């Protein structure tokens, strides 16, 4: 780590915590104020590198993939599969066949629920999740439990928004067919000790899926090191386009699973007597894929690798610490989600101002935050609140953004005083 220190310091100096210039959408006025974008946990902005990669593909290289012998089809296939290679190296998968392109995290989790779990689940079996999951890591499991008679167990969280590890581990036994957990909570920012939990689950032969949507844009992720069986994430939260995401799965797991959807591209041979399925990962990519989305995602990976995820993590941690301390100085502030290990997100309530009113007042000052339940209603119920205001960070945020946030919160207090 010490060898990396100068590099981090140098990069910080070269771009003093500000990569805004790479992101054209950030350079605009909203209601007469320069935009402060603090909603990257919902969807991040795209750098020029991503926008250009998608546009160049659309302008010059578009054709269907894996089909034609003509030049454009070849180029499209090269670019699409090149994106897969980039993703493979980004999360350190063993082989490119372990990288399945999906519509996003939600589809990736549904794929695992329906293809990996549903065929084997029976009454008495269990699935374990936690109380802080996003709806996309709750509802697919509820559905597969309804379909099979299996039971869904939910490990609780404490006042700080940390999962009760002992309770979760106590739920793991021979009846559990999968443990599905977030890497980072989208509503609270809590980082879960996923590596430790994978190890514990594996000691009992329980496979583990990690919802990494809120981790991948903010910290280095190494699926080999984590040793998880599945890891799901989305392109549009890591500066890529919407409609593209990734399911990483260990090859042996993916091999064991039947295809989820049928159609073109996922077959080797089709006749009315039967169909032979294609090899991994194409077995899980029925139909013409989101080619431009994958190419955009590949460009996003390249962009992130150019900066270095360790540098990004360091920068965001610094801004998060600053945001937490500045928010704490605002009168009437109640922070929701104060886990010891946190990333990129801070939920809060201000006096008794409803989050939607805060959202409107902040937007009026050019500050974009998310308000509401953040697709994590059980978390809101846990804290007995209808919703929160949430400021979430990405690599392009800086201290000025936080100062603007705090100013606008103080202005909101004046209106409601």
């Amino acid at each position: 780590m010490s060898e990396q220190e100068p590099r981090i310091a140098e990069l910080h100096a070269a771009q003093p915590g500000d990569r805004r210039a790479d992101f054209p959408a950030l350079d605009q006025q909203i209601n007469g104020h320069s935009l402060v974008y603090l909603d990257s946990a919902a969807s991040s902005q795209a750098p020029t590198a991503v926008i250009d990669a998608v546009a160049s593909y659309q302008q010059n290289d578009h054709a269907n993939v894996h089909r034609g012998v003509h030049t454009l089809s070849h180029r499209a296939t090269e670019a699409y599969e090149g994106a897969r290679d980039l993703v493979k190296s980004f999360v350190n998968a063993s082989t490119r066949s372990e990288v399945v392109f999906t519509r996003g995290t939600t589809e990736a989790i549904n794929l695992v629920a329906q293809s990996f779990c549903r065929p084997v689940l029976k009454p008495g079996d269990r699935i374990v999740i936690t109380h802080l999951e996003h709806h996309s890591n709750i509802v697919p499991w509820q559905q597969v439990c309804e379909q099979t008679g299996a039971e869904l167990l939910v490990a609780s969280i404490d006042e700080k928004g940390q999962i009760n590890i002992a309770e979760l581990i106590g739920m793991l036994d021979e009846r559990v067919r999968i443990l599905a957990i977030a890497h980072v909570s989208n509503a609270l920012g809590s980082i879960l000790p996923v590596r430790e939990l994978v190890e514990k689950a594996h000691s009992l032969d329980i496979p583990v899926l990690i919802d990494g949507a809120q981790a991948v844009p903010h910290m280095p992720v190494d699926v080999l090191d984590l040793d998880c069986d599945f890891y799901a994430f989305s392109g549009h939260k890591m500066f890529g386009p919407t409609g593209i995401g990734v399911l990483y799965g260990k090859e042996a797991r993916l091999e064991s699973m039947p295809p989820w959807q049928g159609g073109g591209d996922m077959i080797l041979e089709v006749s009315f007597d039967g169909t032979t399925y294609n090899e991994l990962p194409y077995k899980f990519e029925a139909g013409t894929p989101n080619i431009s989305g994958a190419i955009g995602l590949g460009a996003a990976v390249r962009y992130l690798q150019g900066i270095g995820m360790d540098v990004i993590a360091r920068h965001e941690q610094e801004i998060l610490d600053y945001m937490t301390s500045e928010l704490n100085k605002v009168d009437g502030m109640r922070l929701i989600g104060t886990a010891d290990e946190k990333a990129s997100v801070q939920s809060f309530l201000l006096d008794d101002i409803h989050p939607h009113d805060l959202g409107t007042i902040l937007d009026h000052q050019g500050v974009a935050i998310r308000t509401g339940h953040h697709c994590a209603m059980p978390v809101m119920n846990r804290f007995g609140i209808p919703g929160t205001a949430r400021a979430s960070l990405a690599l392009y945020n800086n201290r000025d953004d936080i100062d603007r946030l705090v100013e606008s919160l103080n202005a909101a207090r004046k209106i409601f005083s």
Partner: protein
Amino acid sequence: MAAAAPSQEELRGLYRELILDHARNPRNFGKLAEPSHLAEGINPLCGDKLKVYLQLKEDGQIADASFEGSGCAISVASASLLTEAVIGMTKDDAVGFFSAVINSLTGTEGVKNFDLGKLAALQGVREFPARVKCATLAWHALNAAIHDDQQTATTE
């Protein structure tokens, strides 16, 4: 990069004193003892949830009205103003009033020759498209209650 002073004028149009007053101290808040009609309104986008209770006389006059639930300042103030406005109206007048209020908040057509009274204070939402549903939620619930629609009214 200091922020310019927030232009509070436009915001004041939304958060008028009357609105803030009703949001802080909602009138007719709580259940009616024996409502003849009630309906729930949900805004699935933000999770706001309101219940509107009505006590209708046999001749169709609204003898009493109340609401309960939680929501933002706009949705609570709107519900509070609603209950004040409809008490004493006939059911048919209330339905007409519902249409007039919705039109005035969504701007689909001009509201002419219709005195919205205090409800005019809600018109500030027209400048804030994302908040129109907050202001209309209670009204959709009112309409559902009058029509004995058992289904939960939503703003979608």
